[in-house]
């Protein structure tokens, strides 16, 4: 434990946990990665967002030394992921999005096998994790459901004390209760100084735990930074009930998707507004006689929609509902 901590701190000055620059990888004529940049600072939890097929898993497999990069530089824990694979893998744990286990081993055996390869597993920690994830370790792997196979890989990853967790859509197949357990484990790992790369297309999951976010699309990062920095770029959702006629607001610069419905004696108005224009829009709304007012910071769903909205629209998915906020975005992203 102590050695891990020291090595982590000494590393933090030296190099980020993951540093990818201008990474290219093609499979035949398909360009999976097209100049990807991605950094995970030591001790940070980095979200890696994008729809299926954007190149998230390809990037992760390059990081694990399973795929060889065509060009670009990739550093993992200060080493080369292809050349130094074995030494680096001692210090990381990986959870794939679709876990396939050895059919004649039980879940408990698979966990022990993976953990023993990385070092001495802690029996108490294993028992604790099994209890928290509510996993029966005595069943043969072939009889596990998808969610339970996922839990096996998660327990195997969290049971080892590592410097870096590489998680590729790790919660697919888990119910919300187990997702909460996962989030809690991730926070504990972060508190212990572990760096995390968490790929996902479930945005709320990333929002809950990540310090930084990289949004990837068609093999390259389209946006990256801390959550706060990214929010700065976007809009807020406003819902208000006013007495006057709000139609003039629709014409104001920075206001989008305005919709009105009758609400008792007043009018319910919903719209999005660029954060930079908020100062001018607020007084105009106030002048209409406000009965109620809510403004929400943009969720990651909305960030996501900004970058994939055109794609979704082309597929016939409604990009923006009638003011229902993130719900259509969520279902649109989920359906992809």
């Amino acid at each position, binding site marked *: 434990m102590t050695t891990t901590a020291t090595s982590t701190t000494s590393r933090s000055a030296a190099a980020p946990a993951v540093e990818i620059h201008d990474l290219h990888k093609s499979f035949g004529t398909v360009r999976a990665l097209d100049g990807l940049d991605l950094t995970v600072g030591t001790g940070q939890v980095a979200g890696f967002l994008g729809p299926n097929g954007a190149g998230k*898993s390809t990037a992760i*497999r390059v990081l*694990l*030394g*399973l*795929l*060889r990069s065509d060009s670009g530089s990739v550093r993992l824990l200060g080493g080369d992921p292809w050349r130094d*694979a*074995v*030494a680096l*893998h*001692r210090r*990381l*744990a*990986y959870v*794939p999005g*679709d*876990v*396939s*286990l*050895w059919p*004649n*081993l*039980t879940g*408990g*055996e698979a*966990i*022990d*096998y*993976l953990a*023993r*390869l*990385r070092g001495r597993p802690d*029996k108490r920690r294993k028992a604790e994790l099994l209890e928290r994830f509510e996993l*029966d*370790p*005595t*069943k*043969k792997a*072939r*009889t596990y459901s998808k969610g339970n196979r996922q839990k096996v*890989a998660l327990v195997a990853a969290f049971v080892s004390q590592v410097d870096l967790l*590489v998680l590729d859509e790790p919660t697919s197949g888990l119910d919300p209760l187990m997702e909460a357990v996962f989030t809690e484990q991730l926070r504990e790992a972060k508190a212990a100084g572990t760096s995390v790369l968490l790929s996902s297309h479930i945005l709320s999951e990333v929002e809950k735990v990540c310090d930084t976010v990289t949004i990837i699309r068609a093999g390259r990062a389209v946006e990256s930074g801390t959550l706060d920095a990214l929010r700065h770029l976007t809009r807020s959702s406003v819902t208000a009930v006013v007495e006057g006629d709000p139609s003039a607001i629709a014409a104001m610069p920075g206001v989008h998707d305005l919709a009105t419905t009758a609400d008792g004696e007043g009018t319910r108005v919903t719209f999005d507004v660029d954060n930079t224009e908020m100062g001018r829009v607020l007084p105009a709304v106030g002048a209409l006689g406000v009965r109620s007012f809510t403004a929400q910071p943009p969720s990651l769903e909305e960030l996501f929609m900004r970058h994939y909205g055109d794609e979704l629209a082309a597929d016939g998915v409604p990009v923006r509902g009638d003011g229902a906020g993130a719900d259509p975005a969520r279902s649109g992203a989920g359906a992809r």
Partner: protein
Amino acid sequence: MSAVTAAPAQVPAAARGGGTLTGTGSLMRFVLRRDRVRLAVWAGSVVLFYAYFTFALDTVFADPAAQQGRAAVMETPAGIVMGGPGYGIDDYTTGVAIANEGITWMVMALAIMSILHVVRHTRAEEESSRSELVRAAVVGRHAPATAAFATLVLAQAVIALLGALVMVGVGEDMGLVDSLGVTVGSGLSALVFGAVAVVFCQLMEHGRGATGASLAVFGLAFVVRAAGDMRELGGSTLSWFSPLAWAQQMRSFVDLRWWPALLSVAAIGLLLWLGAVLASRRDFGGGMIASRGGRADARPMLRGPVALAWLQQRGPLVWSCLGLGLMWYATGTLMPEIGTMIGDLVTENPAAGQIFGDDPSVLGVTFLGVMLLFAALCCAGYAVVVGARPKGEESEGRVELALSTPVSRSRWLGSNLAVAVAGTVVLLAVSVYGMWLGAVSVGWDDQAFGAYSQALVTYLPAVLIFSALTAALFAWAPRATGIAWALVAYTFVVGMFGDVFDLPQWAFRLSPFDWVPAPFTADVDWAHVGGLCAVALVLFVLAFVGFRRRDIATR
């Protein structure tokens, strides 16, 4: 039940049957649609085997002397185990031979088909929860199992009919009624094992458990029949406890009687009734026998890829050793009779002469050489199967998880190949020494233990070439790993029929086994053995080089 008594206007039986069997018709069509290729391949293969068996016996064992030679072999213990009770052994014509020897193998093939079919469409469906969707529709509780068994009966009927027609068509002197006796008897006997599978599908929670238990029942039936028939010609009381005997005791082509088939029909009815009773008492997805939990913690030995590879491969290895070992042991026990039989064969049939040679003094040894070739080919097949395990691990997505641990690619591949190669060596040794043990146990000691050992050592590098080729293909062209099977097939054809077809020299030289010194006869050319070793080594090295540099395939 209470609903039925409360509604006296309904006919109770019809109401109950209609309720639990609703939808059987559509499910049957669905099964046939889903398995049209699978069933067609099974049916085609079995019918083809009927044709091949008839044709081969008619051509190779054409005259009475050769037939009596074969009959003599069938009277030995090994002949009885691998054959039948021995009806009509005095006049061993093609039909009699098929009824005596063929039924055992036909029932085996058809029983395996029946068991797999039933489990696939009942318990395996339930396990994968596909059946949940179906059962939620307007489908009765017993409909899936009924549809599975009904389609099986249909398939067996088609096979029996076509099989009989093919025997009559191909054979020179085969009666339709006796041919039907063989095929229908075999089909009914196989259906008994299908019905056994229906029962086990109610008892066991998992498809694999049901398949295993049903196959074990077949194994028991095989042993009981063999033990019973060993006691006296025509079988003893013990024989009658095995469904296999119910087909053989019909005495087709000797003195055909149909009533033993009724035993099969009765057993099928009884087992299906039992299955229905059990099915009515259990929950969907549940079994009568709870599945056993495994260990929560891995045993201490499981701490590296070698240990894992061993855990994965030991099952196939143990069963292959047991099965092939017993088979080659039995072959060894045939040695005293075989010299005589082949002697008769060769004098009458030039084609057989080209396979076994025509020097009567060494016929036994030549036969043993051919058997060794077969044994080595089986081991080559095993080498390809276990050599392709890394490919399976990759396409199942497990290699990704394995290589994300501190295990290098070379160590991972090396571990898998080391266990595969060790298993292949053990299997070859078990096969060769099994033959030796069989021959010695009946007092045939023309060849010493050392001669067998020498054959083992000289065949080993040739067999390992198959492992190495599979590994190299996996490393450089994973999708082409199956090409290794082409080499197995090629080696078989060249080894068995190269002389018959009069192939050119280079065609012989492409077969790894052609470089193996002929066992028991020639002096060993160690340069050839060394060359085989070198080829295997180069292929293994290529495998490691290739696997270290390529991308891991992802799903």
